[in-house]
């Protein structure tokens, strides 16, 4: 798609594109990846500790302990987002803080806090899922398609 668009542009636009590409600051990919690995790994280790807590004291299994763990992690990310700590973690960790569910929680909660000045109904209620909505939409729709195909195969396909 990007190539088709470039064909339609004028010569000056193409020259500008080349210039922009040449002068673009290189992103420190390796350093960013190391930071993402570190932050993501630490968040998952904290999750593992909470998961053990639920498995030993509330008798969840390895498969079911994920749910209360996710809820607890989102609670923690509410506190961190509210006190402005999560922004700093996100600046350091990049994807390491966005990919775990705490990043999903942060997206919902920061949107809710940010739009609070516009009122609770139109501001908080209307904008809460502004960023996280796409995750829910594509998750739900792809899950629907996958589950539908699998159910049909199992019921009538004889698998």
């Amino acid at each position, binding site marked *: 798609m990007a190539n088709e668009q470039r064909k339609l542009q004028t010569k000056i636009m193409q020259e500008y594109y080349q210039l922009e590409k040449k002068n673009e600051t290189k*992103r420190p*990919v390796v350093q*960013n*990846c190391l*930071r993402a*690995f*570190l932050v*993501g*790994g*630490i*968040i*998952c*280790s904290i*999750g*593992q500790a909470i*998961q*053990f807590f639920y498995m030993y004291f509330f008798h969840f299994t390895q498969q079911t*302990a*994920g*749910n209360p*763990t*996710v*809820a607890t*992690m989102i609670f923690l990310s*509410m506190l961190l*987002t*509210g006190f402005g700590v999560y922004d700093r973690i996100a600046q350091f960790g*990049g*994807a*390491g803080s*966005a*990919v*775990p*569910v705490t*990043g*999903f*929680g942060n997206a*919902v*909660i920061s949107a*809710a*806090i*940010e739009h*609070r*000045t516009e009122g*609770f109904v139109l501001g*908080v209620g209307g904008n*809460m899922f502004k960023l996280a909505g*796409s*995750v829910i939409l*594509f*998750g739900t729709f*792809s*899950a*629907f398609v*996958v*589950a539908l*195909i*699998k*159910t049909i195969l199992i*019921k009538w396909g004889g698998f």
Partner: protein
Amino acid sequence: MVASFFWAFVIGGLICVIGQIMFDVFHLTPAHTLSTFVVIGAILDGFGLYEPFIDFAGAGATIPITSFGNSLVHGALQEAEKHGLIGVLTGMFEVTSSGISAAIIFGFIGALLFKPKG
């Protein structure tokens, strides 16, 4: 127990590295990256691969957002076993309910407690 912390750290970290590569090398926005991850999680569970992955990596598999897609498919399939096709709709959020409810409830409490900065 130490081993499960180790694998949670390594696998969770590696999934985040894949996300960082999608940010930096393929220039995707966080929303695109997270949506892709959720779809990948749903497809993996469709092939029955996510459950052994959780057994192996523990929180390294349940904490990244891919587990959201996995638990959506999981709930839908569980209900579909009992009620047939309609179960795909009724069971969809059965397992994921905790994540979404927590995000909504704590998001609202956060909006009540904290004031926006800047």
